[in-house]
């Protein structure tokens, strides 16, 4: 059941809920764009991908169930577009799940989180971690999607989301630790 009734304009037996689409989908533009920009690392490409995601969302809007989470639905479409883009242009090799689990189990070191680093330092560190981890961190930590929603957006099992998130956060802390060392900042908990 939708909060807001559909503003459908019934024309020749077809419905054109353009106002509703704009009303429910466009408020998420900033979130989609900033996520795509960080995942892709190229603002122009990110704009194109977000634009394509909105077009696809509009074309399949008749399948969108009112009352369900529009934001999660849009992100699922966006990542479908991003994955298609990657396959097309980069032929990217995805990390095998067994590798992820191995990494998670063997890395016991827990890097401290340096303080006094700028937002730019954090973003730069985020950009340096592998995209498979970066996208999970963005969806779970920045966009605050549930594990289930992240799994649906990326088309992976929930367990994979959990392991990638854990690993991604750990990598991010490690990157920041290195940045802090570069500044001569030594954090409590880090041995000399």
């Amino acid at each position, binding site marked *: 059941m939708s*909060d*807001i*009734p559909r*503003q459908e*304009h019934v*024309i*020749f037996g*077809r419905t*054109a809920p*353009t*106002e509703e*689409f*704009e*009303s*429910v989908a*466009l*408020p*998420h*533009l*900033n979130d*989609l*764009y*900033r*996520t795509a*920009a*960080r995942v892709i690392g190229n603002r122009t490409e990110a*704009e194109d991908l*977000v*634009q394509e995601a*909105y*077009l696809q969302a*509009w*074309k399949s809007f008749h399948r969108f169930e009112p009352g369900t989470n529009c934001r999660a639905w849009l992100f699922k479409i966006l990542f479908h577009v991003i994955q298609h883009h990657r396959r097309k242009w980069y032929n990217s090799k995805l990390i095998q799940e067994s590798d992820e689990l191995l990494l998670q189990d063997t890395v*016991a*070191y*827990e*890097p*401290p*989180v340096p*303080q006094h*680093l700028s*937002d*730019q330092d*954090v*973003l730069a560190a*985020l950009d340096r971690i592998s995209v498979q981890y970066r996208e999970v961190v*963005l969806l*779970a*930590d*920045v966009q*605050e999607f*549930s*594990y289930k929603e992240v799994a649906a957006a990326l088309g992976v099992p929930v367990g994979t989301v*959990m392991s990638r*998130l854990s690993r991604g*956060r750990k990598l*991010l*802390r490690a990157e*920041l630790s290195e940045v802090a060392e570069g500044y001569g900042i030594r954090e409590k*908990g880090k041995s000399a």
Partner: protein
Amino acid sequence: MNVINFEDGHCKRIRSYLDSYLNNELLVETNHEVLTHLEMCEACSRSLQDRARLKVQLKRAVMQEYAPAALRERIGSNLRQSRGFSFNTFSLSLAAAAVLVIAMVTFFTSSPARKPLSLQAQVAPGDVTGQILKIGFDDHVFCSIDHQLADKQFTPEQMSEKLGPEYAGLVELVKGKMPRDLTVVVAHRCGYQGREFVHLIMRNQSDIVSLVITRKNGEAFPTDGVAAIVQAAGGLIYQAAWANQQVAGLETRDHLVFVVSNETNDTNLQIASSLAPSVRDFLARLES
């Protein structure tokens, strides 16, 4: 490689839960176990604080980027073209019927493409305060009145789910500040005119009060020589009234906050003043 020496296996196990704890994804029993451990383990507590701090800073850093205005324009333009294309794909026979239907519809109705709001705010050109307050007024009218959301009654679970973890805490916060006879009936996120709102609706038998929050999109209340500004509860509150609705507005660094109701001017302002400190604090935590 540096390896942390966990005090015991329990610490190691708790730390393996901390990521899910941060995301509120643990089962109740496990959550309780983590909380109990954190109360007595300073090292794990510090580790959690580190992770939480990084999460907040990461979110703040990423959220500083906004989609270019040109992209929004292009998407809007694409939607309009896409809609036009759909019409071109109709068969000729349907097109002929369409002409007839259009003629009939045009003849019998003159309704515009976008149904206007039932209550309109008239804002004079150059009245920046009025233009900003109209943002909250319009969402209140669109959602609470025209789509009759004020007649709904969401459960606490529905409200929490619809607001999302970021804003779910607002419901309890508002409940504690409302006059006794006003109850929170709806809390959700909604959109109007391409803008996203966090919207709580409170009501009694005759009155409807909306708390409307939206992220700033470059707006800021003017601070010089504007009438109807009230210094209340540690900050300025701006007021306007349209169509028997009272609007009170305030701003934080990143948000605009509105209280809109059919109460009297004094009562609406009283509600806004009562909510202002807590809401400001709540949003400040999100913005920090």
